């Protein structure tokens, strides 16, 4: 019979870890998804609890978005499209890295980062156009909390893009793990933003 003592073996040789960055990024993406969807769930809870009023087409709607606030639809829709393009750029970087094409990988990563900056710019433009004052009520508080959290997540994505780009610039083009994890993170950012866009900006 095998005893517990027999089961303990001396340490084996060092082995390469299997996709640790991809797995860790997956865990972070899982956490980020729960963060954003948890916040959206609380948003739904408050919206459902708001009183009903007659809407423009004589249908009963929740009186959640204050009447004096208008969602700038052009800016929000542009931002949604921008986020999708960022994810596509992230995938382009993976495509190029697979072919060991350092030039295009770097270009794709920098473009992803620049698009991220454009997304931040668009969000700030939305804030300015809406003119919502944070301390005015529940809607405004929650609006800034959820969009602000998304903004912070986008900023981490930009930082990720820069780190990945400089690694490739430094000659580590064969190291696809970072580029793949980077693309996954931007897919998450795009998905989370599309969900936020639909709930906060489209459904209002």
């Amino acid at each position, binding site marked *: 019979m095998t*005893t517990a003592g027999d089961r303990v073996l001396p340490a084996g040789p060092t082995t390469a870890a299997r996709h640790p960055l991809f797995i*860790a990024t997956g865990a972070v993406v899982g956490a980020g998804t729960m963060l954003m969807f948890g*916040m959206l769930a609380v948003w739904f809870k408050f919206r459902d609890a708001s009183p009903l009023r007659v809407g423009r087409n004589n249908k009963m709607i929740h009186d959640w978005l204050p009447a004096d606030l208008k969602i700038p639809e052009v800016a929000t829709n542009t931002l949604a499209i921008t986020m999708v393009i960022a994810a596509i750029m992230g995938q382009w970087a993976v495509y190029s890295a697979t072919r060991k094409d350092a030039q295009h990988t770097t270009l794709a990563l920098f473009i992803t980062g620049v698009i991220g900056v454009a997304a931040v710019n668009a969000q700030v433009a939305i804030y300015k156009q809406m003119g919502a004052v944070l301390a005015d009520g529940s809607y405004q508080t929650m609006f800034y909390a959820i969009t602000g959290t998304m903004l912070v997540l986008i900023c981490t994505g930009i930082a990720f893009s820069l780190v990945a780009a400089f690694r490739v610039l430094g000659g580590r083009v064969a190291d696809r793990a970072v580029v793949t994890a980077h693309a996954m993170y931007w897919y998450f950012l795009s998905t989370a933003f599309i969900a936020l866009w639909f709930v906060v900006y489209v459904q209002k």
Partner: protein
Amino acid sequence: MTTVNLPSTLGAEATADSGFLGSVAAWLTTTDHKRIGRLFIGTAALWLLTYVGVATLLGFERIDSKSLTFNEGMMTQLFAASKTLASFGVTAPLMIGLSLALAPTLVGARSVMFARNAMLGFYLWAIGSAVVVASLVGNGGPGGGNAQMVDLYLLGLALVILGLIAAAVSVVATVLSARTAGTDLADVPSFAWSSMVGSISLVLTLPVALGTLIYVVVDHHYTRVAFGANMGIMKWLGWSMSQPQTFLYVIPAIGVLAELAPAVARRTQPLRGGVFIGVGLISVALLGSVTQTVHGLAWTGTFIDKAKSFVPYALFNLLPILGVGVVLALALFTLKSDSIKMIAPFIPAFLGGGMILTAMLGNALQLISSANLSGTVFEEGALVYITYGTVLVAWSAIAFWGPTLWGRMLPAAVVAGIGALGFVATVLAALPMYIAGFADQQADSVKDFDYSGPAGLWNAVSTVGHALFALCVVVAIAAAGKSLATGQRVAGNPWIDGGAQ
């Protein structure tokens, strides 16, 4: 099943001849997973002492419900401190610390994946928990009277949550990606499996608490309209400090029990798959947690009404119990062996596991509406059971894997003695709360509760239990410190190799 036992010095930075300051610097900047784990465990021990002190004070104040010994204004902060520290100061970080220290070794990894991230997690958690305690001292926290200190409490809590998530990500990445070549995930030791399941549960549930926290902190700082300001903090975040969420924090503790039973029986666990399924079942509770809703059982109305109430109740409260029951049953099944050789660490592990199961059963009972236990101290009793039970299991893990962690043994008599005394203290501290809960003693209150029965006696016994547990913690810290400094040096692990009983 084959495990790999790495030397205890592996990954440790060279600190010899570097002097005291060099040694401190080496600890503060370490990337050695065992040191990071020990930092988590050591700091959690400090908060455990604080928690036990707070619980003793609250118990003492409740002995006589007609008069107050301490300032009444303190009580809100003390109740908030007991809940926050039990969950985010003791159970969750204790289990994360054990996971960081042991899981890489158990899966044959040279170190934890993203060690700097794990260390960042420690710093965020340690600083955050200190900020939380400081804010509570300054009249902050849930129901606190100082608005700036309430903001500080929320900021500290956010840091604590971020720290735990960061450390949990490292544990998940290690077990999933850094196993010895050729080792399947189904072959990892039970503790490594439960560490992974527990860490995944943290990674998936704590962000929901963080998201709610962001709403609460923005609302509190600016408008104080939507989320109830300081009085609404526990309404929105209390779920992260109570059951079933606390079940998720202690999943690795169940893995310790599953790991130690085969060591006692001197044979492999014949039904490893069952153990893994049992541990996985406990994580079902995460679904109940993230809904932020209490899923009680109201056995009234039509059959459909009863079914609508029973299904979520059973899913979120009974399935985790089934999971612990499966692991306990399989542990006992393993002990059905001719080659049993009792080892001291198994005693606190088994007793602590029993305490955790008692907490889960209590929670399930409390949520039956006809039991009328809601809003009583019964829930506090369950939290004490789960906290102290987890500490007992952690003590057994420290004793069992001590030789692996720092190459020295803890004396068997001390391990077993503290385990037995800790068990008695846990029962004394928590069982009277269960009884007082049935007698309708209000939760979060130290005065003006009156019911037929010896209210003073129950609260006095509970206070003695907490004080006794405080003694156990002090002795355990002293014993661990002595073992670390002058304990018997050993090679390998005598608990496994048969050299110790």
